[in-house]
C-alpha cells in the first residue's frame, strides 16, 4: 500500500507518535475525512481474527495431545471430553442457558467416572471453549503447566479430578461438572469474548463448593490471561492466591473478593496529563 508515499492524498497525524502510550487506534490519519486504506484493512484483519476465534471449533484432538503429557507428569487420570446442551455454535450464541448445562451423555460419563473413583477431590479443572477456541489452543498447555507445577509445590496437597474439556460451554457449566465430580473447588478456564486486539484472551473462574444454580456472585474471576495481556506467571500467582484463600476460608465470590486486596492487581503507575501545562511553567 502506498499511503505513506502520497502525503497529499492522505493526511498523516503528527500525534500518531502518542501510540507508544496507548493501544487505542489514535492518529490514524485521514483520506478526506475517511480512514486511510492501511488503517481500514488493519481493522478488517483484526475483526476477521476475532470472528474466527468465535466460530472456529475447538480442535479437541490437538488439545488432547497437548494435555496427555501434562496428565502424565502430574499423575492425573485421563482427560474427559464432554459437551453442553448447545448443539452448535448458532444455538450456543443465542441460548446461553443451553451452554450452562451438560448434555445427558456427558453427565452420565462424569457420574460413571465418579463411581469408579469413590472419593471427593480438592479441585476440578474444567477447560471450556467459550467464545474463543483460540484462547484455549494457545494458552491452555503453557498456563496449566505453570499452574499445576505451582500446586505441586504448595505445602498442602491438592487432589485433582481428571481434566475435563467442554465444547459449547459457558462459565456456569463448571458448576455442574464440579458438582458431578465431587470437587470442593472448581476452576473454569474459558475462552473470553474476543476483543479486536485480543482474540486469544483466557478467563479463569473459581467457585467454592460448586453446584448447579450458582450465580456470578459466587465466583472469582481473573481475566485477560494471554501472552500480550496478563502473563502466565502473574495469572498463576493470582490463581494460587484465590485457590488457597478459598480453601482455607471455605468460600468464594463476593466475600472472598471484598476482603482480599491482591497486591499484584493493577499496579499501573500514574502518568501525566500532557494536555495541561506543567505547574512549574507559566501557561502558554
Amino acid at each position: 500500500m502506498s499511503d505513506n508515499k502520497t502525503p497529499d492524498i492522505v493526511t498523516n497525524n503528527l500525534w500518531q507518535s502518542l501510540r507508544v502510550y496507548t493501544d487505542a487506534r489514535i492518529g490514524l490519519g485521514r483520506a478526506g475525512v475517511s480512514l486511510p486504506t492501511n488503517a481500514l484493512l488493519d481493522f478488517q484483519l483484526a475483526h476477521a481474527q476475532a470472528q474466527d476465534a468465535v466460530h472456529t471449533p475447538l480442535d479437541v484432538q490437538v488439545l488432547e495431545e497437548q494435555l496427555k503429557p501434562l496428565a502424565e507428569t502430574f499423575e492425573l487420570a485421563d482427560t474427559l471430553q464432554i459437551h453442553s446442551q448447545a448443539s452448535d455454535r448458532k444455538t450456543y450464541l443465542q441460548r446461553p442457558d443451553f451452554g450452562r448445562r451438560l448434555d445427558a451423555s456427558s453427565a452420565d460419563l462424569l457420574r460413571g467416572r465418579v463411581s469408579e473413583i469413590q472419593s471427593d477431590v480438592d479441585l476440578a479443572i474444567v477447560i471450556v471453549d467459550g467464545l474463543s477456541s483460540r484462547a484455549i489452543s494457545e494458552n491452555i498447555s503453557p498456563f496449566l503447566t505453570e499452574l499445576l507445577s505451582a500446586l505441586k509445590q504448595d505445602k498442602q496437597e491438592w487432589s485433582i479430578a481428571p481434566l475435563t474439556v467442554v465444547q459449547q460451554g459457558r462459565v456456569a457449566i463448571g458448576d455442574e461438572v464440579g458438582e458431578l465430580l465431587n470437587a470442593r473447588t472448581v476452576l473454569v478456564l474459558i475462552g473470553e469474548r474476543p476483543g479486536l486486539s485480543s482474540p486469544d484472551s483466557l478467563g479463569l473462574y473459581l467457585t467454592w463448593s460448586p453446584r448447579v444454580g450458582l450465580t456470578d456472585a459466587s465466583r472469582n474471576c481473573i481475566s485477560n490471561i494471554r501472552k500480550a495481556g496478563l502473563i502466565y506467571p502473574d495469572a498463576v500467582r493470582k490463581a494460587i492466591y484465590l485457590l488457597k484463600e478459598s480453601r482455607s476460608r471455605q468460600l468464594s465470590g463476593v466475600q472472598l473478593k471484598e476482603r482480599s486486596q491482591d497486591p499484584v492487581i493493577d499496579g499501573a503507575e500514574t502518568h501525566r496529563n500532557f494536555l495541561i501545562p506543567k505547574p512549574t511553567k507559566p501557561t502558554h
Partner: protein
Amino acid sequence: MQDSLHQTSTGRSSYRYVLGTRTYSFSNLADVMAKATPARSGDYLAGVAAESSEERAVAQQVLAEVPLKTFLSEALIPYEEDEVTRLIMDEHDLDAFSPISHLTVGDFRNWLLSDAATSDSLTSIRAGITPEMVAAVCKIMRNQDLILVAQKCHITTAFRNTLGLPGNLSTRLQPNHPTDDVTGIAASILDGLLYGSGDAVIGINPATDNVAQAVNLMKLMDSVIQEYEIPTQSCVLTHVTNTLEAIEQGAPVDLVFQSIGGTEATNSSFGFNLSTLAEAQDAALSLERGTVGDNVMYFETGQGSSLSANAHHGLDQQTCEVRAYAVARKFSPLLVNTVVGFIGPEYLFDGKEIIRAGLEDHFCGKLLGLPMGCDICYTNHAEADQNDMDNLLTLLGVAGCTFIMGIPGSDDIMLNYQTTSFHDALYLRRALGSSPAPEFEQWLAKMQIIEENSRFTLNNALPASFAGSLKLAHEGNL
C-alpha cells in the same frame, strides 16, 4: 382493518383473531405486544416471541385495533408492584392526551405520519402518551416510518452548549483505557478533539469502578475543559451512588450517569431507585456548573437489560426498553444513549436486528421527548460488521439522532467492542451536512481545528495550542 377484539364467553377480556379456519388468541395485552414485535433473539430467549411469522403478523393486526385508551386501564406490570408503572400512570396528562385519545394504535401510526403531526403538535401530545402506547405503535411501523416521525421530533437540551438543534449531530468523546492510564486517556482526548469530537460529552467508562478513581478522572477531564475553554461537559460513567459521594467530596461533577431499565426490579438489580436519581439530580443541580442550561443527567439504556436481570415480568424487550424512557424523562436528562449492540447476540442476533432496534429506540425516545443518542455498536460474537454500523449510522443520521459515540478507530480497548469512530461522525457531517453544537463548532473554528466557512474541513496543520501539548508529551518525562 377488520374487527378482531372480542369478549370471551367467560367475560374475561381476551385478544383473538380469526384467520380462515384458524383462531389466534393472545392471553393479554402484554402477549399481543410481545408477539407483534419484529423478530429478535432476546424475545425467543425469554419465550415470549411469536411462534410463526403468521402469528407475528396476526398479532400486529390485533395490536393495531387496540384503542390507545386501553393502555391507561391495562397496566402491563401492576401499579402496586412497580414504581415505574406508578411513575407512568401518575405523570400521565389527560389534557395533552385528548387530541389523540380516540385513536387506536393503528390510527396513531397514521396520525404520526400525517401532516397533522407537526413538530409542534408532537410536542404538545408528549405528556399525554405513555411508553406502552409508543412501544405498541413502534411494533407496527416500518424502518422508514420510524425515521420520518423521529425527524419531526425536536428535542433541545443544554448544559455548557446546546444539543439537539435541527441539523445538528453531536458526539460523545469516549477516551476509555483498560487501566485508566492518564497519558493514554489524554492521548485519546487529544485525538478526538482534533477530529472535532466531544460536544455531547467527554465521557469515560472507568476500568476501576470506585469513588477515588472516578474523582481522579473527573478532575482530569475538568482540567482539560477549563484549560482549553471547551464548551462541553464531562462525565464519568460510574454508579449514581459513587457520583453522589464524589459530589459530597467536592469533585467537579458536570453530569450524573446511570444505566436505567424499564422495571423497578431491573433498577433494583442496578442498585438504585427513583429517589436515588432525584437525590443525585438535586446534588448536581446544586453545583450550578452549567452555563447555558441545567440538564445534568446522562442515562444509558439498551434492549435486553430487564431480561438479563430476570426482571422483565414476561414483557418483550422493546416494551421494557421504552418504559425506561419514562424513568429518563422524569429527570430532564442532557443525553440518553441506547447502547444498542453491546449486550450480545442472545438479545440482538445480527446486524439486521441491531439496526431495527437502534431505529426503534431512537424513535420511541424522541417521541417521548428525550434527547436520544445511540451507541451504534457490536461485539465480536454478534453477526455484524462495520457495514452494518455504516447502515445504522446513516439511517440514524437521517432520522436526526442527537448524538453518537466517537472513539479512536472504532475500537474500545477497555470494553472490547466496536462503536463509531471520530472518522464516522465526519463521514455523516459530509454526507448529510450536519453540524456539531453551535458553541462547540465556534470553538473548533477558534482553535483552528476546522477551517472556517468550510463545511467541516479539518485543518491540515496541527493547531498551535495543541502543538505545545504534543511537545510536552514528547519531552519524555510523563
